[in-house]
């Protein structure tokens, strides 16, 4: 073999290896089945349940601790059961779940998001129905109404929610006091707050829009306040249209805010964590984010108390002439637990999920600061004031609009997220934004 032929051969191999390793490799191994241990599922015998979740000890210390504690308790009560955890960060978790599902290797128990996110999994028959757990004694009537519905398809519930999130605007009281600002009640007042902060060199709002769903929250609220929650819901479901003048106006309001320098510099290149850092470092005055951030402002021991004392929240202000109600929230059940349909230890996994959800509901607010989807008795627990206030707001909520990227089908959700980045980056006009959405929703998936 001549030298050049050999090099050519080697190069070819090299090229082929690298080009397709990304998507080719994952689709193999159809035969290996679930990741379940080879232990049999007869009661009393040793059983291993694999659980995958998204609370690493580093970034979600409290949740991580609570999960480990519930698992430890469960293993104590059921000595034959071993629960193995696999922990990943949010985005990596989503990606890994997709890769595992393609090769049919889902963990026995895992975390899923509601509606559009879980639809392909349910349609693919990968999640086991959990309706029997809903009617069972430990969980009967325990869920806040409207939370499990987001996880049901064709009248069957495929996951049990363990979080309920709404998104307030957190603000730094000290910065507000320094510039003699009041909490804005209307959108006009909000714009004045932005103006004052921006002219004083403070970033008004912390935003990391590389992740894109972060910017989506702003659009969702503006759409809700201007056009009303129903218009938005109908547009997403396809029965309405994104051409609605209110929705287009909401998109142009986003660009008005960008023009006013409402968001920190370079937001389109920053991840949510980097955006959040601007708020935590007190360089930005406001931060619109889900209630999953509450522990960082109340209980997380790693955050200085001096900073926590400065954090307050307000509801997204109403827009003059808009159809939205100040008590309507963007949010929804956060994550839920699913059981894999192909799990070799499905019965044990279901029993564990039932135990997990009820224990989580009792302890999550106090230990991890997470608002569960099961009802919380605020009088029984010693809670930080921020929690009590928000839980009370939750009781007054008129409606909860589910996060757009969760509500939409995966394909449309990607278009929505990309267009959000384009809208914030002023690479698309509000009209183009509406047109692309319309096209994506009509196309379906």
């Amino acid at each position, binding site marked *: 073999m001549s030298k050049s032929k050999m*090099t050519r051969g080697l190069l070819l191999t090299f090229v*082929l290896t690298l*080009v397709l390793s990304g998507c080719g490799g994952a*689709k*193999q191994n159809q035969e290996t089945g679930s990741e379940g241990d080879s232990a049999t599922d007869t009661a009393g015998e040793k059983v291993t349940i694999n659980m995958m979740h998204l609370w690493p000890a580093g970034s979600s210390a409290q949740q991580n601790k609570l999960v480990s504690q519930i698992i430890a308790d469960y293993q104590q009560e059921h000595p034959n059961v071993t629960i193995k955890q696999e922990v990943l960060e949010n985005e990596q978790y989503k990606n890994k779940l997709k890769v595992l599902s393609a090769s049919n290797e889902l963990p026995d128990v895992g975390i899923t998001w509601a509606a559009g996110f879980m639809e392909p999994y349910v349609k693919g028959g990968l999640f086991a129905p959990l309706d029997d757990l809903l009617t069972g004694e430990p969980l009967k009537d325990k869920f806040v109404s409207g939370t499990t519905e987001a996880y049901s398809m064709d009248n069957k519930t495929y996951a049990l929610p363990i979080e309920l999130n709404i998104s307030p605007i957190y603000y730094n009281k000290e910065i507000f006091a320094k510039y003699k600002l009041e909490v804005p009640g209307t959108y006009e007042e909000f714009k004045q707050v932005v103006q004052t902060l921006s002219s004083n060199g403070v970033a008004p709002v912390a935003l990391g*829009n590389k992740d894109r769903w972060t910017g989506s929250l702003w659009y969702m609220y503006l759409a809700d306040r201007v056009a009303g929650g129903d218009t938005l819901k109908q547009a997403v479901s396809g029965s309405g249209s994104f051409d609605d003048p209110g929705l287009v106006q909401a998109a142009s309001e986003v660009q008005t805010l960008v023009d006013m320098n409402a968001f*920190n510099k370079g937001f*389109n290149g920053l991840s949510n964590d980097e955006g959040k850092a601007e708020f935590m470092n007190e360089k930005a005055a406001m931060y619109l984010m889900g209630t999953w951030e509450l522990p960082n402002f109340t209980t997380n021991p790693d955050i200085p108390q001096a900073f926590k004392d400065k954090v307050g929240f307000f509801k997204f202000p109403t827009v003059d002439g808009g159809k939205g109600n100040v008590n309507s929230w963007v949010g929804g059940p956060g994550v839920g637990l699913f059981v894999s349909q192909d799990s070799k230890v499905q019965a044990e996994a279901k029993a564990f999920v039932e135990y997990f959800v009820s224990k989580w509901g009792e302890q999550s607010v106090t230990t991890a600061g997470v608002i569960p989807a099961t009802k919380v008795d605020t009088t029984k627990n010693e809670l930080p004031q921020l929690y009590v206030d928000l839980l009370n707001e939750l009781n007054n909520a008129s409606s909860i609009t589910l996060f757009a990227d969760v509500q939409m089908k995966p394909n449309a959700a990607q278009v929505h997220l990309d267009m959000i*980045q384009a809208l914030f980056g002023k690479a698309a006009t509000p009209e183009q934004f509406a047109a692309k959405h319309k096209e994506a929703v009509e196309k379906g*998936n």
Partner: protein
Amino acid sequence: MDKVMSNKWVIALYVMPSLLLIMGIIYIPIVLTGYYGLNEWNGIGSMTFVGLDNYRHLLKDTAFWQSAGHSLLLALFSGISLIGYLGIALVLSGRIKGANLLRKIYLIPMLLSSVAIAQLWLKIYHPTNGVLNSLLTSLGVENPPSWLAEPSLVLTALFIPIVWQYAGFYILIYYAALKNIPESLMEAARIDGANPWQIAVRIRLPLMSEVIKVTVVLSVVGSLKYFDLIYVMTDGGPNGASEVMASYMYKQAFRSFDFGYGSAAGFFLLLICLVATYLIRKATASKETIQYS
């Protein structure tokens, strides 16, 4: 020994394990990817055969061609940067002080994982606290750009760490090739009165031309299928301004659950890489191998 090797079964026995591996891990998935590309498939349910629809759609997909354009730019940029690496390798292989230490310094980025490099450069490019913008501010620049958020800057901002990452690799290859050239040839040239420039251009470069061709192919093909740093640093954003073919393929398959279309994009990417390799080999083919010894 000859007797053993003349038995076809024995040969097969030795070749089989690696052949099976390479078939199972590389060639069969390629064929399958090509097949998936002919289907409508969300990665979970059943597939529907749609023929060449995905490929037809791909050829008309402006977002894909935009990302292909970015990949080509990266390939061009990497190709040009090879000249720089060659220069550095030529200098290093000369008798200069500290060449050994410099060689090691250049190699270090290659030893880091891509994600670590990405995190490092994210900190450098941070719009307010980043090293780069802090430096610019202290030099009196009023409003330094947000490197990764400006559609017009983001590609350049990404190319720099990519070039930095691979510099050591190519310098090392060139350095090794240069060290392989017999000292006696240079000695003879020097006696004949050739200056260092003439020695480099007339003797050393022609003798390492095969290596240069290989590195051109490596860098061009490597750039065409480049993924990791871009995925971590910008995720193709903002608004597709730094999307490359591989990240586009990934998004279609794993974010939009369009495995058929993603596979079609992947297969197309393979074809582009093969064509690029062929063209480069063709363009740089020489009739005879130069040998001076």
